[in-house]
């Protein structure tokens, strides 16, 4: 992806925030989902030729799925460490590539699943529980 294409980063987050607000999702959840989405968008724009972001809104949670066919992530442990980045110089000059993207996504999500295969692509699922509904989903489990 060319440096020019990064100018649209933030467009998906803005749209998603608008949808969530219209659905009456709690402001704190909207804020956290917005940050997760922005960082995911940024990674797709910097590292891949494009990807797909899916938003799912439930009574008890909001989920974001990111999927791309980009270069994948070599070291899944390292990429979760704040400060580690493989961003190219053009992205760093714009103030990206501080090595905070994945950690920032993880910090704002209640559950965060990252799968990647070098040369194949990356998939991320981030879940944010809605206030007052935390762990409600497990109430049907044995012994509950």
């Amino acid at each position, binding site marked *: 992806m060319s440096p020019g294409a990064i100018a649209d980063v933030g467009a998906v987050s*803005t749209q998603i925030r608008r949808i969530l607000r219209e659905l009456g999702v709690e402001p704190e959840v909207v804020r956290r989902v917005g940050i997760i989405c922005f960082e995911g968008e940024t990674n797709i724009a910097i590292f891949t030729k494009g990807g797909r972001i899916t938003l799912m809104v439930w009574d008890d949670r909001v989920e974001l799925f990111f999927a791309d066919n980009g270069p994948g992530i070599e070291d899944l442990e390292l990429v979760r460490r704040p400060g580690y980045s493989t961003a190219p110089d053009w992205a760093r000059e714009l103030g990206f590539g501080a090595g905070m993207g994945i950690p920032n996504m993880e910090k704002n999500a209640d559950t965060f699943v990252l799968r990647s295969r070098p040369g194949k692509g990356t998939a991320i699922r981030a879940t944010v529980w809605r206030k007052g509904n935390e762990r409600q989903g497990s109430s049907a489990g044995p012994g509950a």
Partner: protein
Amino acid sequence: MNAREVARVLGLEPLAFPHPEAEVGGGFCSDLLSRAMAEASPGDAWITYQRHLNVVAVAKLKELSLVILARGPEPEPEVAARAEEEGVNLLRSDDGMFELAGRLYALLAGDPETHPAERG
């Protein structure tokens, strides 16, 4: 203290000023967008040397009260246009980041409505 008052006292030049009544609760300095995404608080004035479109996106997402572009070249016209469109206050200054931060800090510290020092 609102953005209009901050702009007046610091002598900032508005590039886009759709919400001059926005309340300025604190300040934040960084040229790293991810750091602003992670650490800036809603209502903060963000002082930066970056002056491209993504700055507007971060300010919008983080619900910042204004962005102050420290001394440097004029941003591309589409940056101010995007800020206007997204409802982001974007102002510029001929002062550097250090001076702007010091003056803003003193200004907010002297305002009984805000206590930047307490935010660490």
